[in-house]
């Protein structure tokens, strides 16, 4: 299979970015929108073509989907270590190409309506293209360092887009927070890469992941050095996962995600729901054989628990939030936790790898319905000019398309058959059930909570009483409605894609069956969640407040996101700024510089004191001369005695 054209998929958005970025003042807004959409449309078409070629024309080679790599050396470190740049085509990278280009294309189309009349229209499209380029580069990376490079680039595009309204202090600080928190996590990632590079002598994914089919173990050899009881490679993987957890807003690095909602809503849909935030999941999936085979899945178990805990934690917070974008943000975190958990409980071969498959499946379906939810929320916000539930109500009459599509997405995320989320979530729960009962029960609980908080905001927005609106809300223009409709269709059909045929850990595929009892439980829990939301929120009543009160302190904690932000603020402001930085600056001024100054000043003092000796008076000199003669004479006499 000739894969050279795949280079164009990321490079077209890059070209668009350069074109729009450099000429942002010269190009008319209307034209820049078209350029952006056109660029993405070509990338999207190429991705679809690539997927068709890969899965249907090339198909399986020796019973498994192959990994095709094309790369060149970009930078040499040592004789063995180097950074390559290139593309890697395999089942998950092709799937991610589809996800990224689809969502990005929809967001581009949508933004033409949403951002209309904004000052920085061209700049916005330039940033979107930059992000798309970086994300596609990340997806296609052939080695750890290449993925790290694009990892940082998506981070910076995210920074630029969160801080898009840069005159708003809250947006600026949210952007800063997102960048610094993820950068801190990336510190782990980088050290992990250094460890991997040193002990395995390669950064290359294909070499790292190679599995010997006969022994069923990694081909790779490394010196079995251990550190604090764990193999260094396990440490490397844990640290790499730390980077993934940062990007994917897992505990305890999740604090940037809710604030990231300061960015324009289409950005939240693209970056903070569908694509960038799943980069961590993708990273673990990319290194899955390593995670699975090294030291009995030790690192993989950490992935599972972090995912499971984050998922539950975020779902609880989501119930209490009143800003609809923040509810969606926590929902994203919760769903990504699901994906992480599924990866974490997965096996490798055949049906044991159901978790891996489910994770990728859920990544795919979640991208569709979560992007739809965000775009729908954007449509609502566009109409009522507020993010808060208290300013919304009864909108179904005014915005029928948004209402229907949002409802479809809500059904999908709640796991109601036959919508997409049902199929992928079911597989996740199957995987959890087979491997870790505790995580399974937590997963079921999350399923119920998800259905509840999602219908809470659905009813809150579209049902209930009308609010006093500035002007009568109206349905969004076609440019915004089309992406909603398209994604709504995807949220239904995506579930019917036979993922287990195409995307599995061992690339061989297996046949998945619906597990009816587990599916029934999941659906049942979901329906209960929806029903509770119906009772509490369909008609406005005081029930919800009453129950919230009965939870007392716990409700308050959840509402304040369990005070994680305050904790971080304490660490940065009180410890790093006041206890490290300020004393450092003081120490530098007073002690280090003070010493230097002291030397200088003392020199002046000493010279002032001794300059009197050179008085110019003959008698002083004569006196000194005589003293000198006497002293020397004494010395000589003493010495010669």
């Amino acid at each position, binding site marked *: 299979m000739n894969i050279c054209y795949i280079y164009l998929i990321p490079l077209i958005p890059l070209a668009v970015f350069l074109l729009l970025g450099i000429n942002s*003042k010269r190009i008319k807004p209307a034209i820049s929108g078209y350029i952006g959409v056109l660029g993405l449309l070509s990338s999207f078409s190429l991705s679809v073509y690539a997927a068709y070629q890969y899965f249907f024309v090339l198909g399986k080679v020796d019973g498994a989907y192959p990994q095709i790599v094309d790369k060149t*050396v*970009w*930078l*040499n*470190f*040592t004789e063995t*270590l180097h*950074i390559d740049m290139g593309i890697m085509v395999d089942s998950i990278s092709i799937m991610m190409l589809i996800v990224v280009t689809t969502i990005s294309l929809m967001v581009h189309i949508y933004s033409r309506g949403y951002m209309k009349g904004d000052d920085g229209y061209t700049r916005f499209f330039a940033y979107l293209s930059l992000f798309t380029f970086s994300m596609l580069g990340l997806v296609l990376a052939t080695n750890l*360092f290449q993925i*790290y*490079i*694009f990892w*940082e*680039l998506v981070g*910076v595009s995210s*920074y630029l887009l969160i*801080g898009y309204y*840069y*005159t708003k*202090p809250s947006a*600026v*600080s949210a*952007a*800063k927070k997102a*960048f*610094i928190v993820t*950068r*801190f996590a990336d*510190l782990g990632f*980088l*050290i992990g890469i*250094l*460890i991997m*590079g*040193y002990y395995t002598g390669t950064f290359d994914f294909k070499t790292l992941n190679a599995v010997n089919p006969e022994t069923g173990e990694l081909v790779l050899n490394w010196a079995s050095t251990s550190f604090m009881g764990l193999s260094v490679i396990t440490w490397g993987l844990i640290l790499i996962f730390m980077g993934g957890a940062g990007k994917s807003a897992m505990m305890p690095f999740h604090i940037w995600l809710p604030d990231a909602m300061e960015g324009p809503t289409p950005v939240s849909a693209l970056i903070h729901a569908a694509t960038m935030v799943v980069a961590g999941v993708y990273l673990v999936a990319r290194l899955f054989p390593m995670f699975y085979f090294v030291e009995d899945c030790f690192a993989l178990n950490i992935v599972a628990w972090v995912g499971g805990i984050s998922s539950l934690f975020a779902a609880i917070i989501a119930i209490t939030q009143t800003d609809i974008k923040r509810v969606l943000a926590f929902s994203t975190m919760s769903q990504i936790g699901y994906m992480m958990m599924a990866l974490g409980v997965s096996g490798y071969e055949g049906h044991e790898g159901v978790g891996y498959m489910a994770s990728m499946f859920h990544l795919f379906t979640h991208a569709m319905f979560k992007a739809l939810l965000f775009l729908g929320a954007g449509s609502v916000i566009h109409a009522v000019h507020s993010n808060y539930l208290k300013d919304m109500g009864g909108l179904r009459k005014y915005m029928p398309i948004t209402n229907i599509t949002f409802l479809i997405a809500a059904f999908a995320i709640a796991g109601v058959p036959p919508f997409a989320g049902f199929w992928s979530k079911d597989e996740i729960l199957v995987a959890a059930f087979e491997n870790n009962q505790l995580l399974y029960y937590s997963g079921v609980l999350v399923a119920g909570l998800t259905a509840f908080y999602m219908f809470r905001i659905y009813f809150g927005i579209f049902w209930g009483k009308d609010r006093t609106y500035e002007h009568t809300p109206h349905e969004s223009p076609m440019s915004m409605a089309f992406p909603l409709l398209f994604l709504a269709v995807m949220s239904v059909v995506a579930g019917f894609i036979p993922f287990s045929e195409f995307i599995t850990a061992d690339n061989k595929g297996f046949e998945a069956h619906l597990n009816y009892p587990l599916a029934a439980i999941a659906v049942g829990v979901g329906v209960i969640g929806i029903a509770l939301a119906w009772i509490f929120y369909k008609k406005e009543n005081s029930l919800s407040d009453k129950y919230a009160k009965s939870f007392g302190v716990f409700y308050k904690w959840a509402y304040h996101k369990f005070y994680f932000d305050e904790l971080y603020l304490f660490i940065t402001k009180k410890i*790093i*700024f006041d206890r*490290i*930085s*300020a004393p*450092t*600056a003081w120490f*530098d001024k007073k002690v*280090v*510089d003070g*010493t*230097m*100054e002291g030397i*200088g000043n003392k020199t002046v003092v000493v010279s002032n004191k001794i300059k009197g000796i050179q008085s110019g008076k003959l008698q002083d000199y004569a006196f000194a001369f005589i003293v000198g003669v006497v002293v020397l004479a004494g010395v000589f006499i003493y010495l010669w005695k």
Partner: protein
Amino acid sequence: MDILTLFVVVPIVTVLGLVFTKNLKQARTVSMVGSLVQLAMAINLVFAYVKERAVNDSIMVFTKDLVWFKHFNIHYNIGVDGISVVMILLTAIVVLAGVFISWKMEELPKEFFISLLVLSTGVYGFFISLDLFTMFVFFEIAVIPMYLLIGIWGSGPKEYSAMKLTLMLMGASAILLVGILGIYMNSNADGGDLTFSILEIAKVNIPFEAQKLFFPMVFVGFAVLGALFPFHTWSPDGHASAPTAVSMLHAGVLMKLGGYGVFRVAMYLLPEGTLHWTDFFLVLAATGVVYGAYAAIKQTDLKYINAYASVSHLGLVLFALLMLNKTAWNGAIIQSLSHGFLTAMFFALIGMVYGRTHTRDINKIGGMMKILPFIGAIYVITGMAYLGLPGFSGFVAEMNIFVGGFQHPDMFHRVLTVLAVSSIVVTAVYILRLVGKIMMGPLETNNVENLPKATWYEKTGILLLLIPVIAIGVAPLWLSDMIRESIQPFIQGVLR
């Protein structure tokens, strides 16, 4: 005249030309032409070097040797390798950019440009010298005009800063001179004449006792210029008072002489001394990396932030050199280049902001992006490059350094490397704080509406610096391989 000597002659000719100029217009035109010629020569030198390297595998190429002072065996001995070639290119670019940034230097323009070009003469001479004494002379030529440049054209407590900077650098020079003479006095250890020639001395086995004694002197003598903790305090005050172009040249080029000297003289000529002292200085360098970054967080003056950032980033250069392997050394050289371009950009931008708002206090500036879109965009780009974003030169340098540092399997080096890696987060904190405060957020200054937009000469100056940053960041292989090749003989020296 040979290709290298021209690098010293052209600035001198330019200076002579400047003597006859009458006003700012003439002075800047002459300086610009001189620096343009210099840049053309530097670019030519890169190509000539690559061509020559293909057929000539001696350590230094384009060598020339003239006896200068026979009695002490002092020669005018010059030659370059890949490292000096890129350093010369850096100098040429920063000097030209500096001339553009000083386009409106109203006060004593002729004298200003003369001092600037004398300084650059010293720098070029330093990079081409292969004779310790000649090198030292050029080193002094580069340092002395700094006093005048800050003392006369500076701002704030300029006399104080100029005095502090000069005294500290002179103190370092004195120690350095002792070290150099120490090497000279031992250069006949294997028999033969005393010599100052670097290539000759490298072949001599200087006794260990002498190496142990003189290495710290030479190292500290150079490293003070490279802002080695705790001898860095001249740099914040000096930079804060210096006029824009001087800060650019000083942080961009002059401070690089430190790392270059450490590598070319201290480590190459005193390999056993290096091994003996490396751990001690490594701790100091690593401290500087982290310390500079934390100190930068708390500063409120734009130039102080940048000065402390330089302490951190140049600490990384010394840190990498002391790691004593090829990868890290490669990173050190690229970091020198990268920091040279980036810090010059930063100082240029600070100059532009200061020239318009008349303040450098970050609490008094805000939302400049809205009214100065070009400067704002470049500021963000420079900040991103500075914090090591891939696609810019800083990333290439830092990754070489970190991978190099991690090649040592022992705990001591690992811990220090991790410490140095952690500075990338702290760097992100102060850079984003800075960018967020002054470029983003609501407008803070009064009468902001009529701030002049960036002019053509400002844009030219900035783009001159930005192009190499992106070029190195996007396609680092050619540069990195050219440097690696030149490092080979030196690393063998240390590890022999």
